């Protein structure tokens, strides 16, 4: 899953899509994941880092990751 190249993000969680004019506010976790995605880290690596760093089960992460993907797609932030 690749975030669109022109998506602008800021350290405080603000996300701007210059192609549509849409803007979003993300929490700290969203900001960290988007930052990793913008650095072209593979999904598996990002998920592995989350499992290591946070008290979350793999099943819970899978469900949340699916939600996250749907939200990014709905927000038109990822490459088709």
């Amino acid at each position, binding site marked *: 899953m690749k975030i669109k190249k022109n998506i602008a993000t800021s350290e405080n969680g603000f996300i701007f899509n*210059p192609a549509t004019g849409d803007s979003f506010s993300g929490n700290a976790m969203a900001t960290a994941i988007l930052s990793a995605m913008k650095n072209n880290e593979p999904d598996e690596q990002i998920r592995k880092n989350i499992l290591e760093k946070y008290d979350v089960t793999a099943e819970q992460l899978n469900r949340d990751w699916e939600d996250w993907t749907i939200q990014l797609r709905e927000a038109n932030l990822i490459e088709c």
Partner: protein
Amino acid sequence: MTIAITGLNANDNPGPGIAVIRAIRDELGHDVRIIGLSYESLEPGIYMSGMVDKTYQIPYPTAGIAALKSRLQYIHEQEMLDLVIPNFDAELYNFIKITPWLDSIGIRTYLPTEEQLAARDKMNLSDFGAEHGFNVPADHKLHTAGDITKAGHELGYPLVVKGKYYEAFVNHTPDLAIKSFHHLSAKWGLPVIAQQFIKGTEINIAGLADGKGNAISVIPMRKLYLTDKGKAWAGITIEDEELIKLAVKFASVTKWKGGFEMEIMRDEGGRLFIMEINPRFPAWVYLTAGVGQNQPAALVKMAMGADVEPFTEYTAGKMFIRYSWDHLVDIADFQQYSAFGELSIAKVHL
């Protein structure tokens, strides 16, 4: 340089005049003398020092070409105008008609032809789209309230009912469509237009073209906040090659000359529909100056004979947020303008 500009009604449904003046002053400085041309004595721009140097009242378009020429002749004798920039749809026909005369007395313009003006008229937009391969919502001309039944059957509901010149209503039932028809026909005359409703994201494009098929500037803006009249109260520039291509194609196929605004709806499938094409700069045109493509200033340069290369860059993500401001005006100024039809913003003492 002395430039006459109309559209000083900076109200909740503003004319573009003040934005045009602001953009021109930004780039060409305060050495430019701006002569406002207004229709009514409560147009706010008349009283805005720093924007307009002097304003003259001009006759309504319905008064005809002779009245407009006579008034402009007088104003030209006082001010020695170099250029006039009309900013209202309804006055453009008259100004285009008198362009040769204006030119003969040394007043330049930068306007489309009568044919270009007619081609993008909302009455002809559907044919225009078919001819040039643009997506345009299907429409139906309404001459009587009875025509709504057929239009509703063909176009479905919700049904957009639009006035000949201004205003549009989205109607969810035939009864509401009939009410809109009567309102709009009484206000703007016949025919009224029924248009297919397109659900999607509203985007506007401000453009400037050179009359030779080249778009000099194209700035797309997504509306972020709408007034109850559907006007953008806030917006943001966006980068989208498809929108730019659309405006470039418009300039190319029409050989449009002057400013223009395209009202676009992007449907859920990503298709771009042209809802309207306005034959002048939009009221939000100052945003073009703020993102690196000052369209009004470029128009002035081109009208005065300069070659302006097409702009290629602009800043995406720049917003405008309109605001209201209670401008205090001395009764003496209002009296001067109401009584004599002209006002220099220098104070008048009773």
